[in-house]
């Protein structure tokens, strides 16, 4: 154990003393802050744009567009209100959120001309129009065509499409409203029809003993396990993905430094492997824990500023503490880490240079991308048979068994998959140790994979 810890200590300190480690550690929070700030800045700094509607003698279309703006703003307030309700916020804060009005980024101004030729200098920015936020060029003009069957959208910047799509929705609603009016039905008819439609509230069926009228409602507590399982699976995947370069580069360094003989006269090969694996695990854990702490501090700051956030987080913490998720999760995590870790270490022991290692990285990346696709499928459709079947493949089990847990799969399947995963991990460990020995002791290279395989099954190979 002492030797394992000494190998672990040297490797761990070797990694964390490198400036690249600190760069990686700082990069994620740094770019999260930069990204978040940029997103917020982009939302806030989005300019207010003027538009005009040219419809001689009427405001029918302009009113329809204004009504669509108001409908969407009302929908946004409703969503915010529902979120505030779930977060168990104080009434005052909840009301404040419900009444929050986002600044509108498109403001209608009177059309400075009636024709496209007249509007051209305003749309091209050569002239400005006056509006609530000062003088600005006209961003877009919606002009009723001469035969009055189209509302043409004119703008110098056709890449900003929000106003155009909003106008299309507005015209659709206007057409339906006009059709109903022509049929002799009032303006509120459609609204009343919409409001009279049956609601379809989601209810969660539970065993009778647990089922109560209130307990049948679907809440965040029902959805949280899937999010947590998905998060754990993705976390494992990210961790495995992160260790590739550490394990490959670390082993290549030792091989190119010709240090194996010295090490192997001081420690046993399994001790060397265990120490190195532990070190890389600790390095990635240090990163993840640091990022987790950053997220925790960030969440705490947000929680202190936004009342009720705690009640939103509580179901996730509860799911994380659920033994039916966390126990298989931890076992999968451990076995998955060891399984992939020793594979990369064994491959690294066959490489003299980074270029050689890169030739091995591509197939390994493809192998690693497959469970990632399965994670996406599981998010879309947790009960997908693809996920069920793929979870029996030992290389994917670590990721997919975690994902299946919220679906309450049969116990025999859980135990069987864990058993297969454990047996495969043991087999991989055995094989990887043989390959590692072939690379470290006998100097086998990628080109000697055939010889290495022969060595694994007890035949001899390359001279030392």
């Amino acid at each position, binding site marked *: 154990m002492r030797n394992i810890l*000494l190998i672990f200590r040297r490797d761990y300190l070797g990694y964390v003393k490198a400036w690249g480690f600190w760069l990686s550690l700082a990069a994620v929070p740094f770019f999260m802050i930069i990204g978040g700030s940029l997103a917020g800045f982009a939302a806030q700094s989005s300019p207010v744009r003027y538009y005009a509607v040219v419809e001689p003698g009427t405001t029918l279309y302009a009113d329809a567009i204004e009504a669509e703006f108001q409908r969407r703003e009302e929908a946004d307030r409703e969503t915010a209100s529902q979120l505030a309700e779930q977060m168990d916020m104080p009434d005052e804060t909840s009301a404040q959120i419900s009444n929050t009005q986002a600044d509108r980024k498109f403001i209608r101004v009177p059309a400075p001309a009636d024709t496209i030729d007249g509007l051209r200098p305003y749309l091209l920015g050569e002239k400005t129009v006056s509006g609530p936020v000062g003088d600005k060029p006209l961003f877009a003009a919606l002009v009723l065509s001469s035969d009055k069957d189209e509302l043409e959208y004119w703008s110098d910047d056709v890449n900003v499409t929000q106003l155009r799509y909003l106008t299309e929705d507005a015209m659709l609603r206007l057409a339906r409203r006009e059709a109903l009016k022509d049929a002799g039905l009032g303006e509120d008819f459609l609204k009343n029809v919409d409001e009279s439609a049956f609601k379809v509230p989601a209810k969660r069926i539970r065993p009778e003993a647990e089922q109560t009228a209130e307990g049948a409602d679907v809440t965040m507590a029902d959805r949280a396990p899937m999010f947590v399982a998905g998060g754990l699976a993705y976390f494992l995947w990210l961790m495995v993905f992160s260790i590739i370069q550490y394990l490959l580069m670390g082993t290549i360094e030792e091989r190119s430094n010709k240090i194996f003989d010295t090490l192997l006269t*001081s*420690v046993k090969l399994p001790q060397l492997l265990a120490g190195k694996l532990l070190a890389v695990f600790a390095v990635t854990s240090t990163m993840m824990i640091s990022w987790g702490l950053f997220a925790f501090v960030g969440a705490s700051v947000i929680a202190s500023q936004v009342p009720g956030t705690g009640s939103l987080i509580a179901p996730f913490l509860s799911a994380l503490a659920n033994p039916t998720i966390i126990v298989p999760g931890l076992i999968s995590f451990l076995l998955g880490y060891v399984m992939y870790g020793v594979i990369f270490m064994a491959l690294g022991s066959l490489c003299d240079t980074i270029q050689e290692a890169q030739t091995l990285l591509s197939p390994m990346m493809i192998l690693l991308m497959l469970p990632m696709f399965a994670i996406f499928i599981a998010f879309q459709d947790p009960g997908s048979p693809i996920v069920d079947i793929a979870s029996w493949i030992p290389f994917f089990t670590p990721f997919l068994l975690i994902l299946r847990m919220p679906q309450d799969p049969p116990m025999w399947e859980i135990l069987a998959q864990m058993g297969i995963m454990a047996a495969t991990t043991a087999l991989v460990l055995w094989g990887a140790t043989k390959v590692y020995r072939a690379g470290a002791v006998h100097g086998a290279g990628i080109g000697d994979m055939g010889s290495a395989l022969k060595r694994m099954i007890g035949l001899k190979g390359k001279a030392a």
Partner: protein
Amino acid sequence: MPVSPLVLSSVTKRFGHFTAVDNLSMEVPEGQIIGFLGPNGAGKSTSLRMALGVMPPDEGHVELFGRAPGIEALKRVGFLPEERGLYKKMTARDTITHFARLKGLSASDARARADELLQATGLDEFSRARISKLSKGMAQKVQILSTLAHRPDFLILDEPFSGLDPVNQQALEDLIRAEHDRGATILFSTHVMEHAERLCDRIIMMARGRKVLDGTLAEAFSTLGQGARITVEPGFDMAAALANTGFEATRVADEAHGDTWRIELPRGREAQDALRAALEAGAPIRGFAPDEARLRDVFVSLVGEADAEALAASEAAEGEAA
């Protein structure tokens, strides 16, 4: 009864169809300096790696301090591998400390020992320098110090003089003597016979995976009769020229200025007799000297000219590396 640090019994190692070590038996008694000699490819490194348990023999068995090589026995051994290597990003002090701790020293003892060794070898001002910043010679010194840090009872040094300049070779010879004086048993491999002549109590010679000699220096030299060395113009066949004179000639060096032949003196004949016979045979003589026996000649006489040329090639490569 003291246990020998190392015993190899009928050890054989094959790689595919190639036999690297063939039925080797040898013993390293306690307290001696043993030279393990032979050209590159003779099987020395493979034998040492088997002795340390890094690779198992296909046949025969190895005993290190009376038992199979294992981590506990290896704690009494300091090993300098032929292929030098250290962690380039570690400092000199951390490197020695790390390897000393792996051999069982406590953290404080290992650090103190590292400081002591670095000071003793004049490397203390580089103790906090990374290995990558040190010269090749200094890095090699650090590796040697790492080998000695835990005060091993048995030092196995695989080509320890390889890559060192003459000054550092002398320093290493002094260090080996100092370790021997401390009580350590030392086994070192080399293809440079002069180091063995100066240092060893006993030598073991290898050629093509087989042991060809195992004995003291005196025993090694006794395998040679008395002789003389005559250097002639290149291409002159001295063996043929002396064929009917009772002298036997063996070419021992093939250099630009001429070929050197060793003339075996039959009992009762002297070096001057051989010179006279060569002159009478018309030899274009460029140099003459009564023979001073060297290990190289012992090796040549034991293994023949083909392996002698392999040895010369190893030495030439070593000279270029240094």
